[in-house]
């Protein structure tokens, strides 16, 4: 009897071990992914795209029992939410990471190195050339790489220049003005937009230039003085040494120009208060005629005006030339963000599987995921002409793609591809300006140093406050000297020293 019981127990134990082994081989995994986007249309359950993705993974990669959960947060909400999740131990498996935060995450062991996984990603490696390789190397710490960075398909249209100065060309035509070439021309255009009733409604309701707190704040004006101004990671070379753009030579001249423009009432005061969406609405409503934003914003306005039959039009124009012949719109081909894998994911959630999926998303072949992830379902959302290598969207706008769960929210390893822009599309014309290398001004340093994370308030707090107050006239231009002093006292010196050391080491 006892022998039978022992035998029975042994059989049961062996069966349970087998069952456990089988269960481990097909352990379901759900990857939590955090993206810095705001797409309210994206469905919480992932939509139709999730089903399609899972079927394609099974068919093309042999991957089953894999799910994903996309968390979308935009702007400063992203950092707050990410910090909260990390502090609570609920770190996402794969998330957007900025250059400023990258080193802190590495030092705290939050993110894992990716070199061993990237070695087995042939499609990613094939696209990681030139600037894309520089992007990848930008996120190196002690010889190891940590970030999956954006790549681009070959082609001029796919270059990094997506923004510029957008002008109401119908207003120019109505007022008999040419596109502004110099800063003085720009001033005259802004003056005319403000005072010459460009919309012809008899009301004093238009400003020359507007924008939002998040838009490029007069970057083209800084460019006219040879200064690269594009957020916190903006650096210039002066006498062979790096200086932060906000304390570079020429900034005071820019502030003088802008303060004068504000005094002449050419600048919409709301631009220092409102968010991008509100600025877009104001632009569409014709509240101001010039702003600095992306090609996509210009197109959003054209789409909104389309069908109104009023001949409203806007285009990206070349940035204006300054008094010394300098010009440029800031472009950063070397990205200041990437996507990282958390240490938790690397240790517990089959990172090789995740990387296989990421690589598949860059596979342009028929069994690859690139076209489906980026454009949706062929025949439903897009059509492809192999003769011309052109893609045509069959949907009215991108929101239909997001509603179905495709495109940006699930572009986990983005590759720039603009084959869907036809040659006669106004966006192609805009890109010919924004991607013209002659119109670019580049940062002298695109790397990361610890002081950037230690003193983030230098740009977002100190600079923005002084800039806004000087331009709006609350402070005189000479107050800029106080800013320079405070910048260096409050961590700017440390940041500059570290940046120069990092540049010397490159």
């Amino acid at each position, binding site marked *: 009897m006892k022998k039978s019981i022992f035998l029975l127990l042994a059989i049961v134990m062996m069966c349970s071990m087998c069952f456990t082994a089988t269960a481990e081989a097909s352990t379901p995994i759900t990857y939590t992914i955090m993206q810095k986007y705001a797409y309210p249309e994206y469905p919480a359950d992932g939509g139709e795209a999730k089903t399609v993705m899972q079927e394609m993974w099974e068919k093309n990669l042999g991957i089953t029992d894999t799910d994903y959960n996309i968390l979308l947060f935009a702007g400063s909400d992203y950092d707050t939410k990410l910090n909260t999740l990390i502090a609570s131990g609920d770190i996402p498996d794969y998330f957007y990471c900025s250059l400023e935060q990258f080193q802190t995450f590495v030092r705290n062991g939050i993110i894992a190195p990716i070199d061993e996984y990237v070695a087995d990603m042939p499609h990613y490696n094939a696209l990681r050339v030139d600037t894309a390789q520089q992007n990848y190397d930008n996120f190196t710490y002690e010889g190891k790489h940590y970030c999956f960075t954006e790549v681009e398909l070959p082609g001029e249209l796919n270059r990094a220049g997506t923004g510029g100065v957008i002008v109401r060309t119908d207003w120019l035509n109505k007022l008999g003005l040419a596109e502004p070439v110099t800063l003085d021309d720009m001033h005259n255009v802004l003056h005319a937009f403000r005072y010459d009733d460009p919309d012809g409604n008899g009301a004093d*309701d238009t400003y020359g230039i507007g924008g939002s707190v998040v838009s490029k704040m007069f970057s083209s004006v800084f460019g006219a003085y040879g200064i690269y101004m594009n957020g916190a990671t903006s650096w210039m070379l002066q006498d062979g040494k790096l200086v932060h753009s906000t304390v570079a030579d020429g900034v005071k001249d820019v502030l003088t120009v802008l303060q004068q423009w504000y005094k002449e009432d050419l600048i919409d005061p709301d631009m*220092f208060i409102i968010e991008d969406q509100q600025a877009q609405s104001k632009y569409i409503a014709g509240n101001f005629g010039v702003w600095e934003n992306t090609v996509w914003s210009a197109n959003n306005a054209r789409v909104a005006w389309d069908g109104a039959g009023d001949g409203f039009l806007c285009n990206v124009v070349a940035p204006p030339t300054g008094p010394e012949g300098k010009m440029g719109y800031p472009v950063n081909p070397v990205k200041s963000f990437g996507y990282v894998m958390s240490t938790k994911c690397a240790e517990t959630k089959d990172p090789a599987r995740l990387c296989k999926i990421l690589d598949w998303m860059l596979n342009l072949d028929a069994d690859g995921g690139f076209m489906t992830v980026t454009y949706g379902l062929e025949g439903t959302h897009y059509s492809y002409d192999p003769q011309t290598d052109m893609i045509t969207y069959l949907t009215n706008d991108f929101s239909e793609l997001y509603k179905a769960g495709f495109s940006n929210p699930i572009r986990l390893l983005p590759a720039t591809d603009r084959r869907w822009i036809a040659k006669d599309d106004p966006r192609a014309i805009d890109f010919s300006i924004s991607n013209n290398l002659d119109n670019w001004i580049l940062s002298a340093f695109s790397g990361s140093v610890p002081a950037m994370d230690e003193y983030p308030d230098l740009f977002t707090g100190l600079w923005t406050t002084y800039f806004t107050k000087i331009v*709006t006239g609350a402070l005189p231009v000479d107050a800029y000297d106080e800013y320079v002093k405070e910048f260096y006292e409050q961590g700017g010196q440390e940041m500059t020293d570290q940046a120069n050391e990092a540049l010397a080491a490159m």
Partner: protein
Amino acid sequence: MHHSFKHYWQLYLLALPAVVLMLTYRYLPMFGLSLGFTNYRVGMSFDRVSWVGLKWFQQMFSNKTFLNVLWNTVYISMLKLLFSFPAPILLALLLNEMDNQWMKKRFQTMIYLPHFLSWTIVAGILFTLFSTQTGIVKYFGMKESIFLNPSAFRWMLVFSDIWKDAGWGTIIYLAAISSISPEYYEAAMIDGATRSQRMRYITLPCISSTVVVLLLLKLGNVLDAGFDQVFMLSNAAVLDSADIIDTYVYRIGMSQGKFAVGTAAGLFKSVVGCSLVFLANRAVKLADPEAGIM
């Protein structure tokens, strides 16, 4: 006590969920205050966390930014104490004098409604109203945006706070006024007292204990100044006159991941608030031993 518990166990049971909630969300998290004395940053493993003592407090008090933030908090709180605190009292006194009950009820409903709007919505309303291009102020010739003027901005904080919450604040004062015996008013009317005299010699003294209790509670929150309101309405042009301790803690702690510094600032605020409550209560008790909350 045993007898009391046995006799009133249903009442203790009724209070139990609230006590558990209070312990869980107010007392237990106090252990997290120790973060303010460490070098913790977001994501740091606990083996790398070390004790730094009063380092963050020393840094805060030698940091011009924090001292400016502290001054803004006190200034805005004092403005609100001076204007926002008496507003519901005045409103309640006026409501009490309304004879037409039908009108009174409808008026009460109207003034309660703004309380239910979040500051996100109120901010949107204010931005639209005060836009110099598209807002109603344009028709009054206002050229400069109130949101870009640091001194006008503080007043806007006060008046928008009054607009939003004064009506709701009348509830407790109206309740206190309704408990006053009508005989006092009748006797006063017989003696020939006017409306204002009845208000001054009967209504106000009878609700004074309520006012004192609410004032003490308000003093305990004197360093609050209204995070939601300031966060939604402020911008770079007014940051140095509108940034308060709560928005500073949010920015430094939550957005920049410096949890230790944020905790230290928050702890400072709580200690000051608690001390003020005790001091104010002491002062009130000296004047009237029956008044106060402790």
